[in-house]
């Protein structure tokens, strides 16, 4: 059974139509890379999956729950879908540890010691346990993004969304974040990654999609996508970024 099912999703910002009918299915444990030029609707689409944006037509079903205006459904989906942002969005007034334990404590109602233990395990996993008691402002961009991943993982989500997680980082820091994401992919997490890191797509993705002008123009395996694209738009896109 597919864990995410989107059917003919359409979305307008005023007069501008950002999504012109996106349909896709994602299986559990699959890693999907979405690429495309800016303004193509790829970020808007993954933001629709956890209702940071509201789609106006079509349907999105996440883990058997349909996204409607029902607040209960939205909350249920959000606590199962983790998200990592381009600009990290860590809470600057809380320590790294507090950033990670906040949601398990207040949403999952876990005890503080349990959630702190779990947080330390996650920090271990992303490779920065020594930063636990620092504030986000004291960390480098790469470290902040790894904390953001740990924070999303603390809710034990079934699906992880990455919205251009490395676009705001220095080249050196990109690697440390990608390494964490690769490890996560190998552990069997369902992931949708919006990124321009083609190396990552080649190595980790099960499928690669190209968005252009609110439509999905190509959907393919990584090998086929890079070596033998079906669509001319994909060829043009690849020739520009590779």
């Amino acid at each position: 059974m597919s864990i995410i099912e989107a059917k003919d999703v359409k979305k307008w910002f005023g007069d501008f139509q950002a999504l012109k009918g996106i349909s896709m299915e994602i299986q559990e444990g699959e890693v999907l890379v979405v690429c495309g030029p800016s303004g193509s609707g790829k970020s808007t689409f993954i933001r629709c999956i956890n209702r940071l944006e509201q789609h106006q037509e079509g349907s999105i079903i996440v883990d058997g729950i349909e996204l409607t205006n029902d607040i209960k459904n939205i909350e249920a989906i959000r606590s199962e879908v983790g998200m990592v942002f381009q600009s990290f969005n860590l809470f600057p007034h809380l320590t790294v540890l507090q950033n990670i334990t906040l949601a398990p404590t207040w949403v999952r109602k876990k005890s503080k010691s349990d959630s702190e233990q779990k947080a330390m395990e996650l920090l271990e996993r992303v490779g920065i346990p020594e930063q636990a008691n620092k504030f986000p402002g004291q960390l480098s961009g790469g470290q902040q993004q790894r904390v953001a991943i740990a924070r999303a993982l603390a809710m034990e989500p079934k699906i992880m969304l990455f919205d251009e997680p490395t676009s705001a980082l220095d080249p050196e820091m990109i690697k440390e974040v990608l390494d964490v994401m690769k490890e996560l992919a190998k552990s069997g997490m369902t992931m949708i990654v919006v990124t321009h890191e083609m190396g990552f797509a080649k190595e980790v993705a099960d499928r690669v999609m190209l968005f252009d002008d609110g439509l999905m123009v190509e959907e393919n395996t990584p090998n086929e996508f890079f070596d033998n694209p079906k669509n001319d738009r994909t060829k043009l896109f690849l020739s520009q970024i590779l």
Partner: protein
Amino acid sequence: MVKLLSKIGAFFRNVVVLKWAVQFIFLGGLIAIIFNYLNIAVGNLANTNIAFSWGFLGETPGVSIAEGLYTLPKSGLQMLQTGMLNMLRITVTGIVAATFFGTILGIARLSNNYIVEKTATSLLEVVRNVPLLVQILFFQALILSLPRLEVYDVGSVLFHASSKGVALSWPNRQDGAWMFMLYFLITLYISNRVYKQRVKLLEEQGRETKPFLWSLLTLVILFAIGWYGGYRIVGIIGFVSGFISQGLEVLPGIFYQILLSVLAGYLSFISVRKQINSKRSGELQGKYSDDDYFKMIITIVIAIVFIALMFAPIGQGISKFLVGDELTFKSDWGLPQFFGGISNALDWSITGVPYELNMAEIEQVGTTKFKKYSTEVGKSLTVGYFATWLGVVIYTAIFISEIVRAGIMAVSKGQSEAGLSLGLRRSSLLRLIVLPQAVRIMLPPMGNQYLNLAKNTSLGIAVGFPEVVAVGQTLYNQEGQTLPVFLIWMIFFSTVSLTLSSIVNYYNRKLKIVER
């Protein structure tokens, strides 16, 4: 010779020397200007046969004050004291009320509800575009246009408004109120400790310890014990204060001179030690810049000047004022009186409930048939107080609402999105993520508004509210001592403002976000 000249030239081209030279010249010039003008002012006053004197503080002004601590002040000092207390009364209650209404209005302005948002916006536009003085006069006119207090109005009422002002039912302070208030503060402290203790247990043992419930229970139980007489335990503080007061009374004025000198010396010692310690370890070890040395030197110099002044005539004057000795007038503001006051307020022979809820009362004026609101039971607000309070509160609340709105909007959208994507509810999001960050942004401009409110109370003079400026003006119109009254105003308003801003600064530092 040439060599010496070039050396001197080099000395004055040194940037450090230049920097300090400029600063000293500026400081010297400033002091010279101030002294010059003070001298001219004192001289001019003497020429008009009004010698600069504090004597009026001890003389009976022979006027009555509409409301406050002393309605028939026996001295100029008591008169000013009454004005100061009236001003503080509006400032303290006004700050609380303006913050409360301002926050609600600010959130209303952010509301998605069309009617709520538009109502708040139009209120904002009206209030902030009309001068505060006009608004205060408007509230005065509004209340003066109410029906008069008629001869047949009589007895207890829940609430009454007339052209005489407003009367409310009110919990009136009884003898034990001061003791209870202190007791209640201690209770708050204890329940806070209980909360922290339970949180610590929760963290250590990982079981639910219900910190909030425990602290609430502590608070309720201690409150109940206190209400029915338990508050008398703080009488022990009054007992000790009584002894201190008696001990201080026999001390001579020189005691205050030494006490204040030691205090100044100690403060400058702490400050210098702090400056030295700040660079004692780490990379900056022992690397003091010229600024650091200058700050240390100036701290010591200020202390020395202060101590020297303490033993000059002015210091003797201050010590006599504090001890309550006859100077040009007798003061009751000394330490013995202070501790005596504490021992009177915190007397464990006092019994009964600390507060009594009373209805407002309409009573006769003397033996005439005219009526007034009782000042003994319930709460009566005069027209002046009501108009000034309402004016400054609404005016300040409007500006606070803009600060609240700006603060909330300044927290980036990404923060809310991050919180929502973690599954937080809107209420938790506001409480845990948005407000803590917004408060940091709001605090400094909020402090400015509090200062504005404190200073705007002086507009009460326009509607006959006897705050410190109004009574001060009455006083110098009588005695002609303009300069001393102005000095008192300046010192009083500076003290209030600096106290307010240091409270705000304290919280500002406490809430500062750690960055590298």
